């Protein structure tokens, strides 16, 4: 589903990604871990078509990212810690707007369904600027799911959420993951990594330093893996 070969990304003179290669098959849930500055956000943004690679090839859903980014965008849902929503519009208006952009011409049912699913149906007509952070994140996920994308990219979606909201989010994500979607999630929360994923990848210093199946990992063994991988990656 997602194929990355030799991905390099430079910002000016700083090299953030130094030749990342991986393959994520359809339906897999991958958790991407790594210290700050490792390049996780950059990596996700490139996959989301928000950034262009400096070198390397990326194919998403069979389409080349550089040449057919238009088609790739149909396949992706992206959630970042920035809301990407309009505070002066209501939840429903926001979703309607994005639905139009994705070419969904009669989205009302879908919008209601999604609002219900993320637990915001009652607040559908309230302006987003009145929402708490947890509610904003939930609406952002609804937005990402509008066009029912087969691939979901989430960049530290639990940042700034209180434990209750984070738990709601986790439940929501588990629910979403179940439907055969390919999911790539970055987080600092190691426990979630173990809980949620099929596969754990650690990114440090712009390179992949660990890539394990999550089935045999526990919270503590993951912690060890992470620490040693990151230390190794800096050498």
């Amino acid at each position, binding site marked *: 589903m997602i194929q990355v070969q030799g991905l390099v990304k430079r910002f000016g003179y700083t090299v953030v990604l130094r030749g990342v290669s991986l393959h994520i098959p359809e339906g897999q849930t991958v958790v991407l871990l790594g210290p700050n500055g490792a390049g996780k956000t950059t990596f996700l943004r490139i996959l*989301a*078509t*928000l*950034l*262009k690679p400096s070198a390397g090839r990326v194919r998403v859903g069979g389409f080349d990212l550089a040449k057919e980014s*238009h*088609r790739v*965008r*149909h396949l*992706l849902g*992206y959630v*970042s810690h*920035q*809301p*990407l*929503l*309009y*505070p*002066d*519009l209501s939840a429903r*208006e926001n979703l309607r*707007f*994005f639905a*139009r*952009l*994705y*070419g969904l*011409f009669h989205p009302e049912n879908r919008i209601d369904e999604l609002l219900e699913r993320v637990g915001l149906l009652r607040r559908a007509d309230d*302006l987003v600027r009145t929402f708490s952070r947890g509610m904003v994140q939930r609406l952002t996920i609804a*937005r990402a799911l509008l066009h029912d994308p087969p691939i979901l990219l989430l960049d530290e979606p639990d940042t700034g959420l209180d434990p209750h909201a984070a738990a709601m989010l986790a439940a929501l994500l588990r629910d979403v993951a179940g439907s055969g979607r390919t999911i790539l999630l970055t987080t600092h929360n190691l426990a979630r990594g173990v809980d949620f994923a099929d596969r754990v990848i650690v990114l440090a210093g712009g390179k992949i330093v660990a890539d394990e199946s999550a089935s045999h990992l526990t919270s503590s063994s993951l912690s060890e893996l992470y620490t040693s991988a990151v230390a190794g990656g800096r050498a």
Partner: protein
Amino acid sequence: MRRFFSATWAIFWKDIRAEFRTKDIFTGMFIFSLLSLLVFNFAFDLRVSNVRQVLPGVIWVSIAFSSMLGLNRSFVLEMDRGSLEGILLAPVDRSALYFGKMLGNLVFMVAVEVVLLPVMVVLFNVNVLTPSVLVFVFLGTVGFAVVGTVFAAMAVNTRAREVLLPVLLLPVMVPVLIAAVKGTANVLDGGTLLEQGDWLRVLLAFDVIFLAVAFMMFDYVVEE
């Protein structure tokens, strides 16, 4: 094609609707224009005998500077929340984003003018609401919206932000300012619209040429 227009329209309406709720842009632009009229009054001593001569310049300077406020604001709002990215994520032609934004900016500017011009009629006792004047006002405003939208999208992304937009925009807008002021002055002096063929042609040429250039160049401004 349908998707393109649909996206343009969606973006346009989104800006209008959001603006309706807060009225930030409109109020800011309008108050600024009023204040600039006030300042001009003191600067040029706009009592009866001078008025007609100075008025075209006053109109256009007010429009020029208040439009820069509006242009900046419309992109600042997008940038601060990262919401521009929400649009960029979607399979939408970047030019649709340009058109939607440009039309939104145009509407804001026209809305301010719709209120400002009658105020000027009252304050200066000169009828600036003739069709001929309005044609010039409209064509000139289109010029500002067409070029200003592109430059605002760039300026907002820089360190200098609001300070940079006038620096970038005004030298390029000179033909519009000249043609609009001259044309407005001539029709206020009693000339007919048809006699201003030269100036109209300059404005139309500017608007059309730069619309085409902006259409081609905007992609490069928003892509990363």
